[in-house]
């Protein structure tokens, strides 16, 4: 399941909704990305996320399908926000559930790594002086995504 939305989400309520009434799930992993007050050594006072409506949903669905093909997942969820966000607010949530913890962990990390390099979102940071700057991509994100490449 994927959602692209402006509103803040409630991590606990999302996990609860995914697992409620089920007794076949053994392991649930969640990842939440939050707005930090520092990036690349500079103070940040706020964040705005732009995205490409339509393509974003397509890409997130592709990434989720890929994870479900690679691992034994009973449930998966990606929520990604766009628009203006204050410090400490959640930006992205990934939840995976599986009978086995390794699958849930691997799939959640994979979803984040691929999302970071494929989903069409762009961060714009606000500095202490009120200036806005487009965030630069990170080589470490590219490397992290690359390790999941299949040999085919």
């Amino acid at each position: 399941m994927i959602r692209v939305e402006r509103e803040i989400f409630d991590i606990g309520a999302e996990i609860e909704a995914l697992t409620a009434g089920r007794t076949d799930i053994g392991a649930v992993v969640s990842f939440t990305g939050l707005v930090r007050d520092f990036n690349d050594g500079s103070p940040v006072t706020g964040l705005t996320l732009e995205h490409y409506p339509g393509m974003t949903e397509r890409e997130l669905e592709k990434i989720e399908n890929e994870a479900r093909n690679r691992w034994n997942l009973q449930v998966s969820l990606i929520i990604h926000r766009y628009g203006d966000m204050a410090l400490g607010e959640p930006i992205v949530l990934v939840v995976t559930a599986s009978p086995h913890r390794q699958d849930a962990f691997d799939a959640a990390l994979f979803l984040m790594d691929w999302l970071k390099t494929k989903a069409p979102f762009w961060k714009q940071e606000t500095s202490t002086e009120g200036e806005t700057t487009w965030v630069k991509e990170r080589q470490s994100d590219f490397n992290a995504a690359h390790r999941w490449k299949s040999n085919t």
Partner: protein
Amino acid sequence: MKILYFAWLKTKLQMSAETVDWSEERADIDSLVRWMKARGPAFAEIFSDLEVVRIAVNQEYVTENIPLDDGDEIAFFPPVTGG
């Protein structure tokens, strides 16, 4: 053809979308990019280094030259930074 720009490409071009008619000189990705480069200094700068420009046609990434149709939606944007 509908052309979309995102993030700093949009900022630099001061434009998020425009409509460009299909023509023989914009019949595929490579020729569209060549035509873009010649439109002015901001375009020339952006399209001089294709390493930092991602291209999507009809909301799918393209990394090779493909033919374009009049109804296509073509997007130019920098490497993504979400998550």
